[in-house]
């Protein structure tokens, strides 16, 4: 196929060619960045929580007096444990994808000069760590005497387990076991490292901080109450939670059952990312509409060109061009225009990405998005041009002998 005659023809339709190329360029820029946004959101949806979500549920109680907390804990723990199918019930202040009650900034020295970062303190009673299904990869899990009573927001001195990514952030390249850190004047010592434990509220995840959690063993009491972790077989968990609700109404009429907060962890996870799923849906919608509009634009314009060149096509056919030649001509023409658009579009895609990076804390667009975007647009162009090109190929040579 000779390209030069096509280029010569395109030069005579500079404006229309430019328009299609610009449309392709814009589509390429939006397509690449929208796909990248989708990939980012989808990655967020699949974040590793580190806990056995399918086997867990939480019951959140409010409205009771702090002075009744100890009594409430005793009643609730005993009552919920009697539910058939319940494997364990424990007290845990924050819940992955749920309530957030232990967010604080820690320091690596007692004077508070060396800031470590904002982390989540999961303060949990006996059994909560096993219930969560956390894996201690080095050091040790909490032992019986690690669980102590405390006054105030949190234990003021404790042996704790931290996540690997937090350890890596606080003490890069060194063994975190035995290291100390402080929360204001309160002191904690690392005795174990856990694989993963996600922070509760996804809106607080910045960069790597989504896994910066600390497990603090403590005994339930005045300030560790009302937030319970239930574990049961994944098949039973919904039923167990329903039973828990009716049980609570009987054994703790003085407390208010928090409907929004008391769910299975799978449901809480789904709720946490509703917004992101809606955004993914919208982005997919935009991409489909965008490809459709672009394709229809190409169909419209090429149809016009075919109608305009009907006579020339007839002449070409009369002097020996085959149908395949005509088809090829329009396909090559489209390929050239789309390629021109894509080259422009790649630059635009990068410019758009720079803008997004500046305003929305988005990472840099990986290079492999560009060839994928290009392939999609080439395919789209060829598909769109096929109909009109086939019609062009069907023009009989006899047209050449007629006037208009």
């Amino acid at each position, binding site marked *: 196929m000779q390209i030069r005659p096509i280029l010569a023809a395109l030069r005579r339709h500079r404006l229309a060619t430019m328009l299609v190329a610009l449309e392709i360029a*814009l589509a390429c820029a939006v397509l690449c960045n929208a796909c990248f946004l989708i990939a980012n959101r989808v990655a967020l949806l699949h974040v590793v929580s580190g806990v056995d979500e399918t086997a867990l549920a939480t019951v959140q109680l*409010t409205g009771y007096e702090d002075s009744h907390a100890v009594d409430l804990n005793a009643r609730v723990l005993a009552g919920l444990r009697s539910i058939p199918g319940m494997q364990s019930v424990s007290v845990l202040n924050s819940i992955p994808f749920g309530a957030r009650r232990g967010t604080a900034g820690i320091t690596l020295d007692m004077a508070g000069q060396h800031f470590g970062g904002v982390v989540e303190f999961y303060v949990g009673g006996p059994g909560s760590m096993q219930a969560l299904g956390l894996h201690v990869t080095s050091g040790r899990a909490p032992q019986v005497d690690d669980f102590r009573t405390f006054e105030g927001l949190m234990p003021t001195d404790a042996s704790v387990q931290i996540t690997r990514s937090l350890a890596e952030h606080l003490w890069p390249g060194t063994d975190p076991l035995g290291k100390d850190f402080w929360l204001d004047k309160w002191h904690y010592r690392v005795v174990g490292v856990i694989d993963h434990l996600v922070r509760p509220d996804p809106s607080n995840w910045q960069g790597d901080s989504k896994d910066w959690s600390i497990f603090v063993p403590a005994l339930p009491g005045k300030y560790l109450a009302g937030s319970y972790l239930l574990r049961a077989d994944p098949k039973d968990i919904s039923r167990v939670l329903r039973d828990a609700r009716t049980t609570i109404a009987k054994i703790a009429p003085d407390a208010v059952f928090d409907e929004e907060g008391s769910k299975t962890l799978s449901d809480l996870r789904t709720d946490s990312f509703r917004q992101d799923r*809606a955004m993914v849906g919208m982005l997919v919608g935009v991409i489909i509409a965008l490809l459709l509009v672009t394709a229809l634009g190409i169909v419209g314009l090429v149809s*016009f060109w075919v109608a305009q060149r009907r006579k020339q096509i007839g002449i070409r056919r009369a002097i020996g061009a085959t149908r395949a030649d005509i088809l090829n001509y329009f396909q090559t023409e489209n390929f050239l225009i789309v390629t021109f658009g894509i080259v422009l579009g790649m630059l635009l895609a990068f410019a758009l990405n720079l803008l997004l990076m500046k*305003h929305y*804390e988005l990472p840099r667009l990986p290079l492999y998005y560009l060839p994928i975007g290009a392939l999609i647009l080439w395919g789209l162009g060829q598909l769109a041009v096929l109909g009109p090109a086939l019609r062009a190929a069907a023009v009989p040579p006899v047209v050449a002998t007629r006037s208009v």
Partner: protein
Amino acid sequence: MFAYYLDLAVRSLKRNKVLTALMVLAIAVGIGASMTTLTVMHLLSGDPLPGRSGTLFYPQVDADPTNDYSHAEPLDVMDYRSAVDLWSAHRADRQTLVVDSKLKVHAPEVNLPPLMEMMLSTTSDFFPMFDVPFQYGSGWSADDDAKHARVAVISADLNNKLFGGTNSVGHTLRLRDTDVRIVGVLKPWRPSPQFYMVAGGRFANGQTDDFYTKPEDVFTPFTSGLEINDGNFWQFTCWHMPDTPGHLQNAPCVWIRLWVELGGAAKVADYRSFLAGYAAQQKALGRITHADNTRLRSLMQWLDFNHVVPSDVHLQTWLAFAFLAICLFNTVGLLLAKFLRRSGEIGVRRALGASRRAVFAQCLVEAGLIGLLGGIGGWLLTLTGLWLVRRQPSAYADLAHLDAPMFFATFVLAIMVSLLAGALPALRASRIAPALQLKTL
């Protein structure tokens, strides 16, 4: 002439229905997408108190004595001491303290299980300052503030829930274990955003949905509320750990917001120097160290500073306009094809004496008509889009409705876009040389 062009345009559009449908569809989809996002933007970034917002100000002092960070900005809300001192000084036309907390609400006369609701503890000026509309009764008096009166104002929602929407003034409400007398019931009140509680937007990572939640359901005098729900107040942040969680009066924490009303530039300047004076005095007393770090932002400045519009909404708007641009290019191409296909016809008109202007005008009328049709489609798609937004799980979902200005904006935008798209093809069409076209006929 316009009517004639319109007639010609209708005939021309009828001639090639597929091409017309393509163009109308492209414009409709582009307009639908951009108007949906623009309407959401318009609703979220608007002035929550038109006409009054210019007189409302948000004072800040920096009570944090530590040097852990740069102190480029004072903390977003105030500690108890500063807030109460500034409020008690009564140096503004009106001033109000606000702090929210969650508590158990029960109506002893009504047989319903207790509810957990948000309570706003504030001072009597809150209602007149923020133009809060009352259905029954009224707010409480400054005297009630001083006497720690056990009174409350409730929202229309809570009144519907507990008292079936009837006049509940004079009835009793049990807040935690304290009985209060209802003195007022609000009309449905939904400021967007919930401006008086906005703070911390710069730490929100663009996820500022929470600024658009509904106002609290129970309002009590500041002093009474602090007593009733003692032990359940949450800090915005602390520079040292509080001794008693939930009881923050003497804690090294910030948790209270102060709003002042200042009518006129002179009063604003006066208050600014009063604020600076207060900070300097507190520094002399040794309570604070960053005395020069005070701010007095107006309501709208404060909303801007907090980037109240969620970043996802911005992103969607940009995306929608990029999409509209693609639709625009598409329409330009199709219009070009359409006009140039009629070269012969235009040649005849030119030969018969039509000026270039006339041809240009005729083409633009046709483009405008496509825009109008696209606008109708765009309007329907905008309504569909807003319906989708209302089904989204965001705090502002219930706000998404098309108001009159945005309805007209839909058509203005559609026609403007189509005229813009039509300009270049129309110019091309008007440049057609009549002689060349006549020869080929």
